[in-house]
């Protein structure tokens, strides 16, 4: 029987779905709350060869991934993928370098450079995001220079070091929604629209999920983006623009519990199937 180590912190509905899907496939899931572990290479005993990293804390998840890889465990997603996807700036760099359509962006470290960057990418309104973060937290749509100065000063005074690196992205006018595609092993298995009257469409912020047909264009750009960041189990936030689809961000520990019902696809099942495939190919 294949055993998959599930590296976690708190267990969300998503992890419960993965556990249920594994049971249906007669796969043993070993739950490992990494907050309870001593990650010492010299003493750690491990009875599985494949681990699925599902920590809600990105920092803890990355350390766990590095540790388990160092003792020879195949971790999904691997540390190469997570190092790219955890950081919005690094993701954008990789996508642009791989010629995957993505909104224009720049990184700056002070207000003067921010003004120059905003001119370069098309002016106001613009979007400022923390490079590390999720669920639409601390995103700012900045409409003018007064707001820019106020936001950057607040971040500078109140923020952690991550908040003092200003990732600036061209504001994309969306049709009241964006797309979240679920891409496993390079294949777009399903997608949802996230509808919201607010410019932030994350379901964590109230965006409503409905099924989005997987078109050839969506499938192609998702595959290209997946290849660029190293593949595995990913979800992508996609903008519909006049110039076609653009990849906004990529998630490497994707949440999906609200997407199985509208799409009719067992995303948890495909995740477990992918883990089985990886385990059998070791």
């Amino acid at each position, binding site marked *: 029987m294949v055993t998959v180590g599930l590296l976690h912190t*708190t267990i969300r509905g998503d992890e*419960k779905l993965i556990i*249920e899907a594994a049971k249906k496939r007669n796969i043993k899931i070993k739950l490992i709350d990494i907050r309870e572990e001593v990650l010492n290479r010299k003493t750690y005993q491990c009875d599985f060869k494949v681990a699925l990293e599902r920590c809600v804390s990105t920092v*803890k998840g990355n350390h766990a991934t590095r540790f388990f890889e160092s003792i020879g465990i195949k971790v999904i997603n691997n540390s190469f993928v997570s190092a790219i996807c955890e950081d919005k700036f690094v993701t954008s760099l990789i996508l642009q370098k791989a010629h995957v359509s993505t909104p224009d962006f720049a990184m700056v470290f002070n207000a003067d450079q921010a003004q120059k960057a905003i001119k370069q990418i098309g002016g106001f309104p613009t979007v400022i995001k923390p490079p590390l973060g999720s669920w639409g937290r601390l995103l700012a749509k900045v409409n003018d220079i007064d707001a820019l100065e106020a936001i950057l000063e607040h971040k500078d005074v109140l923020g952690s070091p991550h908040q003092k690196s200003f990732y600036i992205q061209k504001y994309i006018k969306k049709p009241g929604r964006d797309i979240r595609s679920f891409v496993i092993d390079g294949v777009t298995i399903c997608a949802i629209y996230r509808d919201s009257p607010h410019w932030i469409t994350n379901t964590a912020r109230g965006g409503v999920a409905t099924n989005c047909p997987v078109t050839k264009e969506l499938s192609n750009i998702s595959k290209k983006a997946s290849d660029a960041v190293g593949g595995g189990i990913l979800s992508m936030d996609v903008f519909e623009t006049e110039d076609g689809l653009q990849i906004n961000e990529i998630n*490497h520990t994707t949440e999906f519990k609200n997407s199985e019902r509208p799409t009719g696809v067992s995303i948890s099942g495909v995740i477990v199937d992918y883990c089985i495939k990886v385990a059998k190919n070791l």
Partner: protein
Amino acid sequence: MIKTNCPICDAQITLPKNTEESEVISCPDCHIRLVVANLKGNTATLEEAPKVEEDWGE
């Protein structure tokens, strides 16, 4: 089924058999987010779930 109580409002909470340690749930009465801190047989201890931190997410 596992019966336990909300540590905040003391409401009785019934957990299903497939509950896991570290699982996040909501109290049906006061709606606070709770985490299953300990689970042994039919005994479970709940604690207030940790607050969202800067690096949490997908």
